[in-house]
C-alpha cells in the first residue's frame, strides 16, 4: 500500500465533498439540531412554565434524560450522514466512468477504497464530536448540568458510524447507488428491530426472542453499539431498574463492542476486495 496514493485519493475525496457542499449541508443540519436543542432546554428551564423546584436527584434525572433525547437525535443524524455521505462514492464513479481514469493509474484499487474511507470516517467522527460536544455544552451552559460518560458514548457512536460506513462501502463497491442506499437503510432497520426483539424477549422472559435479537445484533451490530452508549448515558438509578425510555433492560456486552470493531474492519477489507475484483 502506498501512503502517498492513499493521501492523494483522500485529498481528491475531500475536495469533491467540499465542492459538492456536502460538508456545508451536514454542518447546517447539525447546527440546526443544536439550536433547536438549546432552545428546547432553555424554554424548559426559563420558559413561561419552568419545572416546579424538584429535588436535586429529580432535576439531575430530568436533565440527563433531556441530554439523552438530544443525543438520540444526534445519533439519528449521524446514522443518516454515515450512510448518505459515501453512498455513491464508488458506485457513482463506476457508473459515470470517472473511476476508469483513476483506476488506470498505477494505484492499487484498495488504496482508492482506503483513501475514500479515511475521509468519510474522519468526517463522520468529526461530525459526531461536533454534535455531541454541542449538545453537552449547550446543556452545561444553560443548566449547569454535566453529562457523564460522554467520551465513551461518542466513541461508541463513531463505532456505529464505522460499521455503517463499511457496509455502505461494501455495497458501493458491488451495487448501484440506489441499491446500496436501500441495503444500508434496511441493514440499519434490521439492527433496530433486532434490538427491540431482544428487549421484549428480556422483559417477557423469552429466551428464544432474546437469542434471535442477539443473532440479529451479530449480523448488524449498529443498534447494539448505540444501546450500550445509551446504557452508559442514562441516569444510574434508571440503569439499575431498567426503566428509561431510551435504554432497554438488555445491555450489549463489551464483547459485542469488540465484535462491532471487527465487523467494521472486516467490512472495509471486504469492500477493498470486492472493488479490486470489480469490472470497471
Amino acid at each position, binding site marked *: 500500500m502506498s501512503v502517498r496514493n492513499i493521501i492523494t485519493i483522500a485529498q481528491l475525496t475531500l475536495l469533491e465533498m467540499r465542492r459538492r457542499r456536502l460538508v456545508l449541508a451536514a454542518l447546517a443540519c447539525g447546527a440546526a439540531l443544536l439550536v433547536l436543542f438549546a432552545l428546547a432546554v432553555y424554554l424548559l428551564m426559563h420558559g413561561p412554565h419552568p419545572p416546579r423546584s424538584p429535588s436535586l436527584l429529580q432535576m439531575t434525572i430530568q436533565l440527563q434524560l433531556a441530554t439523552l433525547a438530544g443525543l438520540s437525535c444526534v445519533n439519528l443524524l449521524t446514522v443518516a450522514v454515515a450512510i448518505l455521505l459515501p453512498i455513491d462514492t464508488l458506485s457513482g464513479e463506476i457508473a459515470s*466512468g470517472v473511476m476508469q481514469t483513476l483506476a488506470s*493509474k*498505477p494505484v492499487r484499487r484498495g488504496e482508492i477504497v482506503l483513501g475514500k474511507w479515511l475521509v468519510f470516517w474522519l468526517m463522520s467522527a468529526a461530525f459526531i464530536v461536533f454534535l455531541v460536544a454541542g449538545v453537552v455544552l449547550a446543556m452545561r451552559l444553560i443548566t449547569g448540568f454535566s453529562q457523564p460518560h460522554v467520551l465513551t458514548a461518542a466513541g461508541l457512536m463513531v463505532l456505529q458510524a464505522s460499521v455503517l460506513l463499511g457496509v455502505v462501502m461494501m455495497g458501493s463497491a458491488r451495487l448501484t447507488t440506489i441499491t446500496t442506499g436501500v441495503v444500508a437503510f434496511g441493514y440499519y432497520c434490521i439492527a433496530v428491530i433486532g434490538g427491540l426483539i431482544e428487549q421484549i424477549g428480556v422483559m417477557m422472559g423469552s429466551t428464544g426472542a432474546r437469542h434471535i435479537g442477539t443473532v440479529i445484533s451479530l449480523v448488524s451490530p449498529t443498534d447494539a453499539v448505540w444501546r450500550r452508549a445509551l446504557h452508559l448515558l442514562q441516569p444510574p438509578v434508571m440503569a439499575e431498574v431498567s426503566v428509561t425510555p431510551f435504554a432497554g433492560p438488555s445491555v450489549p456486552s463489551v464483547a459485542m463492542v469488540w465484535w462491532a470493531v471487527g465487523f467494521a474492519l472486516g467490512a472495509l477489507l471486504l469492500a477493498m476486495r470486492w472493488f479490486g*475484483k470489480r*469490472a470497471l
Partner: protein
Amino acid sequence: MTDTAIETCALRKEFGANVAVSDLWLNVRRGEVFGFLGPNGAGKTTSVKMLLGLVAPTSGTARLLGAPLGDRPVRARIGFLPEHFRFHDCLTARELLRIHGRLQGVRGATLERRIEELLIRVNLADAQHLQLSKFSKGMLQRAGLAQALIGHPELVFLDEPTSGLDPLGRLLVRELIEELRARGATVFLNSHLLGEVEATCDRVVFLKQGCTLHEMPLRDAQAGLEVELRIDRTDGATLEGLRAFGRDIRQQAGAVCLQVDSEEALPAIARWLVAQGIGIRALGSRRKSLEEWFIEVMGEDQRPG
C-alpha cells in the same frame, strides 16, 4: 527493452453468457500510431479496458511494454484518455492535472512544471482555475488529453479523442499525436472517425464481434493500392501472369482489378503486358480509402451501430 508495446494472445472476455471479446490478437510496435477499428459493439472498449487492467480477461494473455497484464508499475508509463470526458467535474483543470499527476507518480516542482507546460500546450492556461463543470466539450477533451500526457507516457491509449471537437481541436489532437510519435511514444487510437485514423495511424487492425479480422499498414507501405486494367485479352493465362505483380485479381465491369504493394508495380505490369502482345486501353490506380476497407472487411452483413 522489447520492440513490442502491446502484445495479446487470444485475449477473451465473457460477461456471463455474453462474449464481449472472443479472440484478440494484437502486436503493436513501439513508436507506432496504431488504429483500433470496428463497429459499435465489436469489443473495442472492453479490449482497451482489459489492456488497462480495468477488466480482468476470462482467458488469454497480454503484455504491455514488456510486462504482463495488470502490472502496476508499468501503468506509470501509460496514459489514458477515456471516452466521453469522464473526470471529476468539480475540480479545476489545474487540480485535475495535479491529482492525476501525483497518482501517476510525478511530484513536486517537476509536476508543477509539467502542469504549466501542458496547460499551455492544450490552450487551457487561461481557464486553469475554472471548474471542469463549466468547461465546453472541447475544453474538457483538451483537459483530458493533458491528463493522459501528464506522466510523459511511453504508451498512450486515446479513446475517441476527437469526438466532439471542432476542426481546430481535431488539429490539436493530430499535432499531439505527431509529437508523441516524434518522441518515440506508442499511440493506441480507438476512433470511429476513419478520416482521422487515416491521417494519423501507421497501422490499423479491424475488430469484428470480438475477433481481430484484418491488420494493415497505412503509412510507408502503399497498402490498398488498387490497379484497374482495361486490356484486350483477359483469358486465364493473362490473369495467371498478372498474379506475379499483385493479389486479389478479379474481373469487374469489363476491367481487370488487382491489389499491388506499390506504384512501382505499374510500369512493370505495362511492360509485361506489352511483351505478351496484349493491348492496353487503360491503366489506372487508386488507393482504397479506409472507409472502403472498413466496409469490405466488415462485410455486407454488418448492421449500422
